């Protein structure tokens, strides 16, 4: 009988916790179908099945933590399923094959979402669902429910996706919420502690003059419908990716005491979530894709990161990361490298500065770019050239 096992989603991942089963014994599963929501050391991830058949038994219960590679469910190829079920998995199960019941004008919601909404006194009617067919899932309740402090924020996270906007998906009780928030904080703390303990960061900052680049962008957007417009962050991703191609010391992973440069450039884009915390979807091969393509990719993954529709298969290890805290944010950002990556670029908000040009003073649009890099893998001279390479790329947007 085939098995669905706890997936490994990167060298960092050692174990994962089942937060919710989407299937129950007897359910049909297809290759690629989402079968469970997992909490891993990095993120919440919707796990896909690599098997096709019928769920025979769930071997890991909701709330249980198991090591990577542990069998989580058995899948049989014929329809007859055994009656074995993980006892507390069934009540929270839902099938992604079928829309949740919506009889009598009832709002679509998973049983777990209903229960939490009831416990918290939240009206389902006030919530928009991000699940299949607009069904309200647990994350929607969490996101719309009790305001929470940003338990996870401003931390350079991994290149792993997560499925929802809520950093605090949990089993539904108040105590569970605290445990969940505290545990996630611990996970982030551990990763960042490891980064600062193991990675000798060095930092380089430069100011990039963007006046003509922004004028180009404005002009480029004039004739475009909204669906085809370019946003400045897409230019940033392209500039970083194009420059990274020439600086393999800053692009790749530090593994087993040595730098392993990457031939490909996969940019991890740090996305802030309004419910607190961050997700870092990966923009694959950003160096070799056209700018319009990168813009589409960026808009797609950022939108889905926030509306809870990212999947594990859409992600892969980033080879470096990019963080920016928004158009109204701070001027300078010093990132924390997420191991095993070896660099992270921080971009502040574009702002105006008075600059001298010859004998004249004028207002210019300025972007402060900061590189945090691993001194084991690269030196300041390379880092400096990388940063200046990004500036050069941005100065020539037509050729991005």
């Amino acid at each position: 009988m085939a098995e669905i096992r706890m997936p490994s989603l990167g060298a960092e991942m050692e174990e994962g916790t089942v937060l919710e089963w989407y299937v129950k014994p007897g359910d049909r599963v297809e290759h690629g179908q989402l079968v469970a929501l997992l909490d891993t050391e990095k993120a919440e991830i919707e796990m896909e099945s690599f098997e096709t058949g019928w769920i025979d038994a769930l071997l890991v219960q909701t709330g249980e933590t198991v090591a990577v590679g542990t069998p989580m469910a058995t899948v049989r190829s014929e329809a007859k399923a055994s009656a074995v079920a993980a006892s507390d998995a069934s009540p929270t199960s839902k099938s992604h094959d079928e829309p949740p019941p919506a009889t009598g004008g009832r709002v679509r919601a998973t049983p777990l979402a209903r229960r939490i909404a009831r416990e918290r006194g939240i009206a389902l009617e006030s919530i928009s669902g991000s699940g299949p067919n607009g069904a309200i899932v647990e994350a929607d309740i969490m996101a719309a429910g009790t305001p929470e402090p940003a338990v996870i924020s401003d931390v350079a996270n991994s290149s792993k996706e997560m499925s929802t906007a809520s950093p605090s998906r949990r089993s539904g009780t108040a105590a569970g919420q605290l445990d969940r928030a505290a545990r996630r904080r611990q996970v982030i703390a551990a990763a960042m502690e490891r980064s600062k303990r193991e990675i000798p960061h060095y930092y380089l900052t430069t100011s990039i003059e963007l006046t003509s680049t922004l004028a180009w962008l404005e002009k480029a957007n004039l004739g475009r419908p909204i669906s085809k417009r370019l946003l400045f962050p897409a230019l940033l991703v392209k500039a970083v990716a194009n420059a990274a191609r020439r600086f393999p010391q800053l692009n790749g992973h530090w593994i087993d005491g040595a730098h392993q440069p990457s031939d490909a450039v996969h940019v991890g884009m740090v996305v802030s979530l309004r419910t607190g915390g961050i997700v870092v979807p990966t923009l694959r091969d950003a160096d070799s894709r056209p700018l319009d393509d990168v813009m589409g990719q960026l808009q797609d993954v950022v939108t889905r990161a926030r509306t809870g529709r990212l999947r594990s298969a859409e992600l892969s290890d980033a080879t470096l990361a990019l963080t920016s805290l928004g158009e109204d944010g701070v001027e300078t950002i010093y990132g924390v490298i997420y191991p095993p990556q070896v660099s992270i670029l921080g971009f502040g908000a574009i702002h105006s500065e008075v600059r001298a040009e010859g004998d004249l003073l004028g207002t210019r649009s300025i972007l402060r770019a900061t590189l945090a890099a691993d001194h084991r893998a690269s030196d300041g001279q390379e880092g400096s050239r990388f940063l200046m390479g990004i500036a050069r790329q941005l100065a020539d947007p037509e050729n991005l």
Partner: protein
Amino acid sequence: MTKTTKMPETQNADALREILYELILDVAPDLTRDDLAPDVDLRYDLGLDSIDSLNIANGIAERIGLEIPEIDRTSLRNVQALLDYILEHPVATT
């Protein structure tokens, strides 16, 4: 008549405001209606970024038929400003 709004439902501000709420909550399902006071700054107060803003503008184009130019989009920072802008720019259907 040479100028009318594209959809009947956009003919009054209340209906239009409802559409805007729906569009914004589609883009930001973590927000609720209560977050969207007319003068709340979508970017500064609610944390919507340029991609969210572009998605809302795209929704306006699809639902109402109004393509907000990029230079205007970046200056429309709250529900009231969006509403006023749409009312000031009826979509010609001739």
